[in-house]
Structures are given as C-alpha cells and as structure tokens.
C-alpha cells in the first residue's frame, strides 16, 4: 500500500462533501455532507499517523477527537435545525437569507 492512495481517496470524499454542502437545500442534508467531509479528514489523519509511525499515536488520537467533536456538532446542529423548522415550518436553507442586502 502506498500512502497516496489513502490521501487521494480522502481528497475525493472531501470534494464530494463540498459539492453536497454547496448544492443541497435541506439543512439536514447539508449536515450530512459535512459529516462526509469530516470522515475524509479522519482518513487523512489516521493515514498520516500510520505513515509517520508516531510513538504517541497522535494521528489516531486526533481522529478520535474529531469524531467526538463531530458528534457534538451534529447534536447542536440538528437542534438548531429543529428550532428553525419550528419557526419557519421549513428546513430549506435557501430561505435563511435575512442577512442579505
């Protein structure tokens, strides 16, 4: 196995996640795409950790933290989406444009 294969795969997943973030109109689906991006990051981290053969296993530790924070973030994010849905009875991201010109 070469290092690059993991990196390229992670890059691909990341880009797909970007596409999803930018394209999806449902807030929940945007969060889903963000999860995809974070997963790609995790793959990158662990791959680099293994490549470097760190004695402290910092790549894996970092990945664990990312997972944890992602979980917390999803919780909050969904809570916010729920609130917005209650206010506006729609989870459409396009409609959240009050800060426009």
């Amino acid at each position, binding site marked *: 196995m070469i290092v*690059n*294969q993991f990196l390229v795969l992670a890059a691909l997943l990341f880009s797909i996640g970007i*596409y999803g973030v930018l394209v999806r109109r449902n807030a929940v689906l945007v969060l889903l795409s963000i999860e995809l991006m974070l997963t790609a990051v995790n793959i990158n981290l662990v791959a680099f950790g293994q490549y470097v*053969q760190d004695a402290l296993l910092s790549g894996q530790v970092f990945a664990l933290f990312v997972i944890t924070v992602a979980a917390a973030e999803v919780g909050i994010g*969904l809570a916010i989406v729920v609130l917005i849905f209650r206010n506006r009875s729609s989870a459409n991201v396009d409609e959240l444009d009050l800060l426009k010109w």
Partner: protein
Amino acid sequence: MEFTDWIADARNVVFLVIAVAMIGSAVMVVTSRNVIHAALMLVVALAGAAALFLMLGAEFVAWTVVLVYIGAVIVLFLFGIMITRAPTKTDSVRLDHKRRWPAAIVALGTFATMATVTTMAFEDIPMPDGVSRTGDLGDVLFSRFVIPFEVVSFVLLAALIGGIVLARKDQES
C-alpha cells in the same frame, strides 16, 4: 509504481473495492432525492471508513467510528429528519439547487488541487505496516493527551446542555 504492480498486492484489491463502495455511496449521499436514502448511504461510507481504519491498523478508531458515528450520529440524523418532516419519499420538490455547476467546479477544483499536491509530495512512498495496540492508545490518551481529552469532554457536556436547551419546547408560563 505501475498499476499492475499495485493491484498485485491483495490488500490493495481490498482497498480498491472498499474505495469504490465508499465513493459510490458518497455520491449517493450528495445526489439522492430521498433523504433517508442519503442518510443510509452515509452509513455505507462510514462503514467503509471503518474498514480502512482497520487496514491502517487503527482498530480502536475503527470500532469507535462504528459505535459513535454509525450507531449514534446517524440515528440522530434520522431523528432530525423525522422531526423536520423532510420529505421521505421521492417527490417533485427538488432537494438540490437549480444551478449546480458552480459547486461542481469548486469541488472539482478542490479535488484537483489536493490530489495534485499529494501526488507530487508522496509519489510512491509505501505505507508502513503495523497494528497499533489499543492499550498504547489508551496510555497515550490518558497521559500525554489528557488535557485535550478533558476539554473535549467539556465540549460534549456543553453540546449536551446546549442541545437540550435549544430543542425543548417553549415554556408558556
């Protein structure tokens, strides 16, 4: 290294299969018209990621992904979908923007840049073998990285409280 040499390694074949699955499911996540399908496709992608972690020798991380991500986060998502009454069937309401090409360009640009960079930097460098022991990970986690560990636990606490506060019904008093 030539592709034929690369594919000769059995592990790389496994990798390729998993990668294709992951990519396919990821594309489904971002393009599916059914929200539930998108969430479930993410499950597949996450499972693939866990498999990759196993290949990279990060066992604990792999099982954590399965437990936390697939087990909790996706469930959370499904609850969220339910509460926000997102359309669970395929219907005429479009889930995507009309103009998708700017996003495509950006995504493509990002991938191209990153792939080029990594390829230029790590051309054929092999990945070392080795499985890391969970015990070592635990040691490290509670010695060297104990403070970030505690901080992250606070983050979780904050998220917990925040989530409860945000999502509860308005108190009519």
